């Protein structure tokens, strides 16, 4: 009996020890307390089907590698929505915009937070971005944005139409461009344009003064920071060249040509359908053609330049998508980690560049081995890296500045400006007044 009692005690004791051990074991293998991932929202401007898909895929990859965040990407966002959201305190964690012209507004007002302390904390030097994107992501020294891929502009030409017209190489000067445009143009019996060699009308597709003037080497601002449009002869030279070609076509004929259903971001775009033999366009068109008209036989080249400035050949105009963190952000650390990844790491920039055929925006990603070689696209990488490539000024009046310039040249091309030089001088005064007004000075520079 005593033996049985002793055995029972040992058994119970052993059971208790085993149970305790088991309990310890269960406790030690149980998962740690899981915290819910932080929800981040990213706003992007991309709306075209394939473009938004590519951006979402890159963000999703980051999302998978970072279980601490769950990211939602919203496309089709413009600056109006961004400003409205910041004002109402409902801004997302990360915002991006196609419109680098408005950086002055975002940085100057504090609508996008200053990224300098965050860059400093993580030892990131802004010189990792080439000069043009480094410039258009700050305003008066305040950096509230970083570049997320760049756009630059060059010449697209239809090889089949070139061959039929006996043209052997893309034009390198403005004289050659005008001559080729005339050779390539086909009209019907009434003189209406069936195939335009080149359409120089300002406002058509990507034809804006800021992109054109790069080829004439003209300056935007003088040493005092005032408009140089009235004093730099390059502006008048471009205006006369453009007007001369428009007059050869007939302004009304070009307008009638443009009135066809050839919208820029649709598969019926005129260059893609062979109605336009040469076109001034951004690097993204390579991806559009690949997706919409893969059989199109075409080539890309730098934009022809002023005959008097052959040294500019190979350069081009650069601007691009900007990304930042809006004021009032709820998850700043996580938002910054994502912005840092998207803008400074080679991998996401290379993947985005491959998918969107936009130019990657760090010195190092430009040479990334991940970038899929493409003869059409490599032209734009070279333009981006050219030392004489440039961008337009970032000023307090934002896009209104370049719109005013565009409005003037649209009047000029339509024959509404009688005295070009006087008109340019008046435009320069107007632009200075506009900047002063945007700073709150009532238009008195």
């Amino acid at each position, binding site marked *: 009996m005593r033996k049985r009692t002793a055995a029972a005690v040992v058994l119970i004791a052993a059971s208790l020890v085993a149970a305790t051990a088991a309990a310890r074991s269960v406790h030690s293998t149980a998962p740690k307390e899981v915290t819910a991932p932080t929800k981040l929202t990213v706003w992007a401007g991309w709306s075209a089907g394939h473009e938004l898909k590519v951006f979402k895929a890159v963000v999703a990859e980051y999302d998978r590698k970072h279980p601490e965040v769950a990211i939602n990407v919203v496309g089709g966002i413009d*600056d109006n929505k961004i400003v409205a959201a910041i004002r109402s305190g409902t801004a997302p964690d990360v915002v991006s915009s*196609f419109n680098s012209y408005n950086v002055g507004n975002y940085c100057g007002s504090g609508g996008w937070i200053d990224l300098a302390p965050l860059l400093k904390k993580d030892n990131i030097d802004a010189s990792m971005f080439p000069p043009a994107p480094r410039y258009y992501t700050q305003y008066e020294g305040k950096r509230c944005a970083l570049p997320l891929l760049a756009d630059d502009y060059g010449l697209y030409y239809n090889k089949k139409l070139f061959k039929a017209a006996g043209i052997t190489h893309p034009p390198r000067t403005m004289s050659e461009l005008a001559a080729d445009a005339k050779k390539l143009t086909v009209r019907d019996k009434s003189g209406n344009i069936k195939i335009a060699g080149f359409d120089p009308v300002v*406002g058509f597709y990507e034809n804006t003064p800021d992109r054109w003037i790069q080829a004439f080497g003209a300056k935007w601002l003088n040493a005092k920071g005032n408009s140089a449009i009235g004093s730099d002869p390059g502006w008048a030279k471009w205006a006369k060249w453009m007007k001369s070609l428009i007059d050869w076509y007939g302004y009304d004929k070009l307008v009638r040509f443009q009135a066809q259903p050839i*919208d820029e971001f649709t598969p019926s775009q005129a260059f893609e359908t062979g109605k336009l033999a040469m076109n001034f366009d951004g690097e993204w068109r390579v991806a559009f053609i690949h997706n919409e008209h893969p059989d199109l036989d075409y080539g890309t080249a730098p934009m022809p330049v002023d005959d008097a400035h052959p040294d500019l050949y190979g350069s081009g105009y650069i601007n691009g998508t900007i990304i930042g963190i809006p004021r009032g952000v709820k998850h700043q650390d996580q938002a910054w980690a994502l912005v840092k990844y998207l803008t400074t790491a080679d991998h996401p920039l290379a993947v985005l560049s491959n998918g969107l055929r936009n130019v990657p925006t760090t010195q190092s990603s430009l040479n990334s081995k991940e970038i899929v070689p493409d003869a059409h696209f490599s032209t734009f990488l070279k333009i981006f890296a050219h030392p004489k490539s440039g961008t337009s000024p970032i000023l307090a009046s934002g896009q209104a500045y*370049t719109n005013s310039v565009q409005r003037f040249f649209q009047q000029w091309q339509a024959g509404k400006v009688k005295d070009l030089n006087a008109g340019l001088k008046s435009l320069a005064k107007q632009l200075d007044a506009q900047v002063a*007004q945007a700073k709150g000075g009532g*238009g008195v520079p």
Partner: protein
Amino acid sequence: MSQQVVAGTAGASAPAVPLRTAARRRADWRRRRLVLLLMSPWIAGFSVFFGYPLVMSAYLSFNHYDLLSPPRWVGWANYHYLLRVDPQTWVAVRNTVWIICVAVPLQVLFAFGIALLLARAKSGAGFFRTVFYLPALAPPVAATLGFVYILNPATGPLNTILGKLGIQGPLWFQSPHWSKPALVGLGLWGIGNTMVIFLAAVLDVPQHLYESDELDGAGPLQRLRWVTLPSVSPVILFAVVLGVIQGLQYFTQAYVAASIASGQASQAGDTLNALGYPEDSTLFYPVLLYQHGFNDFQMGYASSMAMLLLLVSFAVTLVIVLNSRKWVHQAVPR
């Protein structure tokens, strides 16, 4: 109660008057409370959606306000820039005056003319009234899109038909000379609401006036001049005032037509500015106001434009109403 006690001590006949006064006051107060209660939804709506924005617009018009920074007082600087510096102001004013001077008389004449014809229709009146009213039901954006499509110079059905007749049609919304007339055409097409009001007024003219005119030997034109026009003149005044105010606020059709005709309403964040296309011919005052406020983020400046528009609307309406005493028939002699 205390009032009654105090009043009662003053004399025998005195209490009756204060008692009645107090009761009347209470009744008045109750009535006022009821009126306030019944009006409260309107008062709330008016205060939130009209009163507050109006006061804030007036305040912001004296500020530099970019929507993101706090407003900063700049005095009359915005008004100075608006009236003395901004070259677009007078372009927009000219376009707005043009649309008012051309579209309003045409719309009044057209609506009145259709109403006269419909009033005389012997058969199918209901059908024709519906046909002429139907376009007014189309939303302005959809109607404008339809017009831009129909008037497309290269592929639109109108120019295609003209082409088959050997006529090269105009560039319509792509031409600075034709864009405003095309918008007037769009306005005439959708004149149904005004037309219905005119029709009611024409049908309301007392028949005995026509009969007595006929007995006096008046012909159709004389009956129109001396009977119909005086009778419907209050409606003409209404249509003119409404048309002028709508002209001063002309926005949606111009915005949509310019965006679509320019072919630039495509990607988010487009850097090209289509407003006013072509060549600022559709840059009306409200379009410019929108551009400064929401594209250029200069809300203080846009507010000064809005305040000026308010003053001009008020002044123009006042002039029309004062002037109307000379030509609007008064039903009750003063």
